[in-house]
């Protein structure tokens, strides 16, 4: 029952102690995470866009420059000149000096015949008149092809330009080294997994993909096209391997090629992952700390509560005991008062019998005999026992009808030695040593000096009886001490090394009529009277004892009134 109560309190405190800090903690982390990731994503995407835009510009300018190179040749060298192999060689060498991207150079007449060629393939005299690229070159003036196989059965692309000379169109064509071009396009390096490639309008690879796809294949990526010709589209998608990638795509100007840059998402957002790990770590440590502190503090609180409840319980029990003692005292007093009347009569009757016997004896009517002596003895015994009863009733009345204490301030430092002095003689006769241990800092107390004297004398007498019972005429020791106690109170201790109190008697020690002394030696009221006196003064009294080791009575008295 009690334990269930503590368990439920413990649960409630724990829950509130954990929830209250955890909720804002989690909210803080969550909010921080959200804004951080958003801003990081934005900046990552922005930087990707910038890279895409720069790269596009570079590729575009490469293509433009190569086209310009060819246009320059076309306009600087007449058709008849360029047809000659040595001129073509010189021009080609000049061209290669400008850019290593040129693989070969060919000259075509208006019908598409390959009239001159310099390069690694045997393409001279081939007829290109029906080829789409030639026709477009002738009509549009400039043509840049997609990658194709052509006669040489090797993937390549060409730049062709045409011009009109003396009424006849002619054209030159150069092949661009796909390795060179691929390197140029690939040159983009972002993170570990970043790569760039070009697609033509049909979605066919125009440059090699570093991650494995070759020229003229279809990439394994899902490619999303930008909405407007010069805009950049960014998106997240899985490729065929299932890896998530961040993509950016844009169209090259004047050419139906799509520049694609992609990077593994994990790579692109690596710093984001670092932040996530940090947040997870902080959460674990923070939550752990909160839970640990909650458990520790709750444990402390529940422990404190238990201690306080126990203290309350024992105070309650003390109160109940004091109340019971008071009731008992009232009852005993009434009883004693009623007993006194019959005692008075017995006493008078006994006196009358005594007197009458005396007269009879004097008159010689009773001869001395054993019987007469017995009667005399019996009479004396009646008188003695009535006296004893009187002693008991008077003690009871003292206990039950306690005088209102006349309270005044008492300085224990001088008061206790006076009382010790009263029993010093009796103690020294019985070989008992009395030790005084009175702290100089003992504060004055509020009490009735007369009654306090009665209590201390009672305790000292009990202590002397106890040590004499255990040690006989030598070896006894009694300590009487005083010291400051909680909140200005003072505590008096009377300890002895006597016979002690059996544990089964500890509970009854302050009850009236409880005594361990032989019949006729004690009324069993001394300690209960002491208890009543100390309580009436607003103090408290307790005992601690070990059989055959000794007992210590402690009295706590309230502080002096100012």
């Amino acid at each position: 029952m009690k334990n269930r109560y503590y368990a439920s309190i413990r649960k409630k405190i724990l829950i509130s102690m954990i929830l209250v800090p955890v909720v804002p903690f989690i909210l803080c982390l969550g909010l921080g995470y959200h804004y951080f990731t958003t801003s990081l994503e934005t900046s990552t995407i922005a930087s990707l866009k910038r890279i895409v835009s720069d790269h596009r510009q570079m590729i575009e300018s490469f293509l433009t420059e190569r086209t310009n190179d060819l246009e320059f040749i076309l306009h600087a060298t007449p058709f008849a000149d360029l047809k000659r192999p040595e001129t073509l060689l010189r021009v080609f060498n000049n061209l290669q000096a400008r850019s290593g991207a040129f693989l070969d150079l060919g000259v075509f007449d208006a019908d598409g015949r390959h009239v001159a060629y310099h390069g690694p393939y045997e393409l001279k005299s081939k007829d290109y008149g029906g080829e789409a690229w030639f026709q477009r070159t002738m009509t549009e003036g400039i043509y840049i092809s997609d990658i194709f196989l052509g006669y040489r059965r090797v993937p390549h692309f060409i730049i062709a330009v045409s011009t009109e000379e003396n009424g006849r169109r002619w054209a030159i064509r150069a092949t661009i080294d796909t390795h060179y071009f691929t390197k140029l396009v690939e040159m983009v390096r972002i993170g570990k997994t970043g790569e760039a490639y070009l697609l033509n309008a049909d979605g066919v690879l125009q440059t090699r993909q570093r991650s494995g796809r070759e020229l003229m294949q279809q990439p394994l990526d899902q490619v999303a096209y930008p909405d407007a010709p010069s805009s950049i589209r960014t998106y997240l998608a899985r490729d065929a391997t299932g890896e998530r990638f961040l993509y950016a795509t844009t169209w090259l100007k004047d050419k139906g090629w799509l520049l694609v840059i992609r990077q593994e998402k994990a790579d692109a957002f690596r710093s984001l992952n670092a932040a996530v790990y940090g947040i997870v770590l902080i959460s674990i440590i923070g939550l752990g700390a909160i839970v640990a502190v909650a458990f520790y503090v709750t444990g402390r609180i529940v422990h404190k509560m238990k201690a306080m409840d126990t203290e309350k319980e024992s105070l309650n029990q003390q109160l109940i005991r004091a109340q019971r003692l008071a009731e008992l005292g009232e009852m005993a007093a009434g009883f004693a008062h009623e007993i006194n009347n019959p005692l008075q009569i017995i006493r008078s009757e006994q006196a009358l019998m005594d007197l009458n016997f005396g007269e009879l004896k004097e008159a010689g009517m009773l001869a001395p005999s054993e019987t007469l002596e017995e009667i005399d003895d019996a009479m004396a015994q009646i008188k003695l026992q009535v006296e004893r009863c009187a002693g008991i009733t008077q003690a009871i009345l003292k206990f039950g009808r306690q005088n209102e204490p006349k309270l005044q301030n008492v300085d224990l430092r001088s008061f206790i030695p006076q009382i010790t002095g009263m029993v010093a003689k009796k103690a020294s006769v019985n070989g008992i040593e009395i030790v005084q241990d009175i702290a100089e800092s003992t504060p004055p107390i509020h009490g009735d000096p007369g009654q306090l004297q009665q209590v201390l004398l009672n305790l000292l007498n009990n202590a002397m009886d106890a040590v004499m019972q255990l040690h006989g005429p030598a070896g006894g020791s009694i300590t009487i001490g005083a010291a400051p106690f909680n909140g200005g109170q003072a505590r008096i201790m009377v300890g002895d090394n006597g016979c002690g109190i059996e544990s089964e008697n500890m509970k009854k020690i302050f009850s009236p009529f409880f005594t361990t002394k032989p019949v006729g030696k004690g009324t069993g009221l001394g300690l209960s009277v002491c208890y009543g006196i100390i309580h009436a003064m607003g103090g408290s009294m307790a005992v601690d004892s070990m059989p055959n080791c000794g007992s210590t009575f402690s009295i706590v008295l309230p502080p002096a009134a100012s």
Partner: protein
Amino acid sequence: MEQMKMMLVDDEERFLATTQKLLQKKGYDVLVAAGGKEALEILEKKIIHVVVLDVKMPGMDGLQTLKEIKTRFPLVEVIMLTGHATVESAVDGLKSGATDYLMKPTGLEELIQKAEEAFEKWRRMEEKIRLATSKKYMKSPREILREAK
């Protein structure tokens, strides 16, 4: 020398009877009354020097009886007999004019001793009164003349 006349007042008949017998055997002149009313009636009729009065009695209790005695017969010495061991009831009695108090159960010797002391007090008071009265009669002639005017 005048003989002490005592009266015992208590509601315990047996106590009255036995104590009266005992005191008579010791040579004292003792009357008894079983209650406050009866005691006052006896005081009206007879001369009593010392009253031993029980505090707790049915009807008119000891303290009431004491006050009545002290107003009507101020010279009578009263000893309170109390079953209470407390000083308070005795103090109340002393404040109301009792000479002394005894605690039950009391011995015969104790009773006689206190009674003798009370009687001694009564006698001293009586002496003073007699002296004062005789002085009144032995006035100077001038005074008598003045009074005659």
